C-alpha cells in the first residue's frame, strides 16, 4: 500500500561547489532502494491525472507500481512502449509543469518524483543486455529529416512498426538539440549515444552530412528516392537576436553558437580539439529559459568567475525548469531580474566590455499572458562583462521551406501541420516538433514524432 511521506525522496547530487567546475552529470540518479522507497509514495489513483499531464501519456501509475513491486523489466517495458526516449525525458522534461503538476499527492504534499523514477528505470534498462533485432517487415520506406528528438522518436516508432527508415541529418552527428544544445552535465552524450544505438539496432539508418533542401530536395525523397512518406523534424534552430547596439561585437554569442562550440565541437578540450571558444571572467546570459540556464551554468564550468542571468521580467515569468534554476542558484549563478539589456559596450578594440541595462517593473499582462515589463526612467546602469550570450529564443530554420514548393508555413515560419497527425500541406509529408510549434520541449517534440509515425502507418496501410 502507498506510504504517506510528504517529501520526495531526494536525488543524490554532485556537490554544488565541485560540480560548478566540471561537466559531469549533476544528478547522480536514484539507487534501487531510493526508487523503491519513492515508488511507494504513489497513490495508485484509479484515474491517474499524472498521465493527462504527460504529453505522451506514459502509464505512469503502472510503471511506478512495477518499480514498487521490484519488477524492473515490466517497468522498463511499460515506459519504453509509451516513450521511446525515457532516459532523456527523465532528465530534461519539465515535470513540475507536466506529470508532477497533476499528481494527486501535490498540493498538500510534494508530488511523486515521476521524473526521477523514469530516469531510474531507463538507466536500469541501459545496464541490461538487449537483444534487439532489426524487424523490417514492410517494403515501404520512410525518410525522416533531422535527427533531433522528434525525428529520433518518429524513426523508432516506424521501425517498430516494420518500416525501413532513413534519417537525414545535416550535422556530422545525430541528436539535434540533444547533442549541440543540452550540456553533458544535464544529459550525458553516452546516454544519447545509447538511445541512438538502439535505433540503429532496430534497423534505422542514419545518414549524416546531408542537408535536405540543399543536398537533396524534399521532392527528391518522395520522388526519385522512393520514400513512401517523409517526416520533417528540423527543429527551431535559428537564433534570435535583440537588435541592440554592440550585438556584433566579439565576445557576443547566440546561445546556440556558445553551446554548439562547447557541446558539439568540444571547445572545452581546445587545443586538443580545434574549435575554440572565448569565455571571460564575467559572462551575462540574456534570457531565462532552459537554454539560458544551460548557457550560464556552462559559462561557470568554462571558468567564468561570475556568470549571470539578465532577464527583463521576474523569476515568476521564467520558463526554465525549476530544478535547473535551483541547481544554478546552488552553483553560484547570479540573477538580474527585471533588467533589460540596452547595449553591449565596446572595450575599444571590438570586444564586449559591458552590458548597459535598464531596470524594469511589471505592468498589465500582455498577449503572452505574462505581466509586461515596463522600463523605469533613469534607471540605466552598466554591468561589466566579457561575454554576452543571447538565449532569447529561436525560430524554425528556413532552409528547407525556402527550397520546397507547396510547403505551407505560418507567419512566424513554422510549418503548418495537423495537430493530430502532423500532416503538412504536401501529400505524405508530415512534420512535428519545434519546426511546427516553435521552440518547445523535448517531450512535446517526441510526442509529435510518435503521433506522426502512427499517422504515417495508418496512411500506408493498404485499405482493407
Amino acid at each position: 500500500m502507498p506510504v504517506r511521506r510528504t517529501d520526495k525522496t531526494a536525488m543524490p547530487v554532485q556537490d554544488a561547489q565541485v560540480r560548478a567546475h566540471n561537466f559531469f552529470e549533476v544528478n547522480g540518479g536514484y539507487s534501487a532502494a531510493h526508487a523503491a522507497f519513492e515508488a511507494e509514495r504513489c497513490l495508485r489513483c484509479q484515474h491517474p491525472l499524472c498521465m493527462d499531464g504527460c504529453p505522451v501519456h506514459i502509464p505512469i501509475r503502472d510503471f511506478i507500481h512495477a518499480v514498487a513491486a521490484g519488477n524492473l523489466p515490466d517497468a522498463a517495458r511499460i515506459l519504453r512502449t509509451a516513450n521511446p526516449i525515457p532516459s532523456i525525458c527523465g532528465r530534461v522534461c519539465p515535470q513540475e509543469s507536466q506529470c508532477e503538476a497533476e499528481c494527486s499527492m501535490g498540493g498538500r504534499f510534494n508530488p511523486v518524483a515521476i521524473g526521477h523514477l523514469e530516469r531510474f528505470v531507463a538507466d536500469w534498462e541501459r545496464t541490461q543486455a538487449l537483444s534487439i533485432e532489426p524487424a523490417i517487415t514492410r517494403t515501404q520506406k520512410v525518410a525522416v529529416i533531422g535527427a533531433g528528438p522528434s525525428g529520433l522518436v518518429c524513426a523508432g516508432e516506424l521501425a517498430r512498426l516494420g518500416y525501413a527508415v532513413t534519417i537525414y541529418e545535416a550535422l556530422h552527428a545525430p541528436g539535434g538539440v540533444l547533442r549541440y544544445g543540452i550540456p553533458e552535465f544535464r544529459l550525458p552524450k553516452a546516454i544519447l549515444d545509447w538511445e541512438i544505438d538502439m535505433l540503429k539496432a532496430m534497423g534505422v539508418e542514419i545518414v549524416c552530412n546531408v542537408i535536405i533542401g540543399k543536398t537533396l530536395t524534399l521532392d527528391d525523397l518522395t520522388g526519385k528516392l522512393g520514400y513512401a512518406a517523409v517526416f520533417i523534424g528540423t527543429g527551431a534552430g535559428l537564433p534570435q537576436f535583440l537588435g541592440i547596439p554592440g550585438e556584433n561585437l566579439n565576445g557576443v554569442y547566440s546561445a546556440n553558437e556558445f553551446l554548439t562550440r562547447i557541446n558539439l565541437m568540444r571547445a572545452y578540450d581546445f587545443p586538443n580539439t580545434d574549435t575554440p571558444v572565448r569565455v571571460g571572467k564575467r559572462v551575462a546570459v540574456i534570457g531565462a529559459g532552459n537554454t539560458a540556464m544551460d548557457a550560464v551554468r556552462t559559462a561557470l564550468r568554462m571558468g567564468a568567475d561570475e556568470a549571470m542571468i539578465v532577464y527583463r521580467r521576474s523569476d515568476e515569468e521564467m520558463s526554465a525548469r525549476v530544478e535547473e534554476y535551483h541547481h544554478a542558484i546552488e552553483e553560484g549563478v547570479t540573477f538580474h531580474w527585471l533588467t533589460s539589456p540596452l547595449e553591449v559596450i565596446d572595450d575599444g578594440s571590438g570586444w564586449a566590455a559591458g552590458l548597459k541595462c535598464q531596470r524594469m517593473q511589471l505592468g498589465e499582462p500582455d498577449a503572452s499572458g505574462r505581466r509586461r515589463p515596463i522600463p523605469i526612467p533613469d534607471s540605466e546602469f552598466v554591468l561589466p562583462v566579457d561575454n554576452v550570450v543571447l538565449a532569447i529564443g529561436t525560430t524554425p530554420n528556413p532552409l528547407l521551406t525556402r527550397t520546397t514548393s507547396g510547403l505551407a508555413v505560418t507567419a512566424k515560419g513554422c510549418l503548418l501541420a495537423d495537430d493530430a497527425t502532423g500532416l503538412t500541406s504536401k501529400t505524405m509529408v508530415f512534420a512535428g516538433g519545434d519546426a511546427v510549434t516553435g521552440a518547445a520541449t523535448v517531450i512535446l517534440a517526441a510526442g509529435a514524432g510518435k503521433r506522426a509515425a502512427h499517422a504515417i502507418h495508418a496512411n500506408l496501410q493498404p485499405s482493407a
Partner: protein
Amino acid sequence: MTRIIDARQLTPVTKLFRLDAPLIAASARPGQFVMLRVREGGERIPITIADYDRAAGTITIVVQEAGATTRRVCALEPGDSLLDVAGPLGSEIDLPAGGHVCGIGGGFGSAALLCFMRERSALGDRTTAILGARNRDLVILADELARVADRVEVCTDDGSAGFHGFVTQRLAQLIDGGGAGRPDAVVAIGPMAMMRAVAETTRPHGIRTLVSMDPLMVDGTGMCGGCRVTVGGQARFACVDGPCFDAHEVDFDTAMRRNKAYVREEGIASERAACQSGRSGGHASQAH
C-alpha cells in the same frame, strides 16, 4: 567519408582537390560552399565550391594553408578521405543574365570563379575574370579560367605577370572603357580588404557588385548565428542569407574585426597541426 580523387599543388600553400561527392555535385551552384571536417575533434570549416562536374559526380575545392584545419587538409593526397563534407550550402550568386560580368578573384579566391564564369558564359554573358596575386607564382587557375571566360586578366603586385598593380586599378581601367570595357556587374571573391577595395571602386559608378563573405562559421545551416554580417544595417547570416551580399551595403569593418576574434587560438591550433604534420610556421586565418 569523402574520397579525394585528385589533388594538385597550385602554389606552395594552395592545393586543389577533386572530391567524390555525387550528391553535392548534382545540386551545387556557383557561389555555394561546403562545410568540411578533417578529423574527429576537428573544426567544421566553410570552403567555397570552385567547380562541379555533375556527370562525374565530383566537386572541386581549393584550400589554402592558413589555420589548423586547412593545414591538415593540404597534407592529404588522392585516395585519402575527408571525414565530413556537407553541402552545397548558402545561396547561389544571384545576378540577372545578360551583359558584361566581371569576376574578380584575389589569391585563392580565384578558384571560386571557375563554375561562376562557366555558367555566366553559358548564359550568354560577356565574361571577364581579373585575377590578383602578389606575384606570378601565386596566380592560380588562369588557364582553366581562360577556357570558361571570354577574357582573363592577371594582375600582380610586383608586375611579374600581367598588369602591374592591384585588381582594383585594372577594374578602374575597365570601368573607364579600357580592355573589355565597363562591366555591368562585378563579383569579387578573395581577401576582405580586396573585396572592400572593389566595393569602393565600383560604388561611385553604381555598378552592381557582389562580394562573397567568409565569416567564422560553426554549423553552416543557420543555427549558430556566428556568421552574422551587417548588410544595409541589418544582421544577415552568411550561411543561409549569403555568402554573397551587395558589396555596397556590407559593413566590412565589423566583418574584418569579427574574423580576427580567434587569431590567438588559431595560432595555437595551427602550430599544433604543423607539429603533428611535421612542418612549422604559419599564421592563422580561415579559408575562403
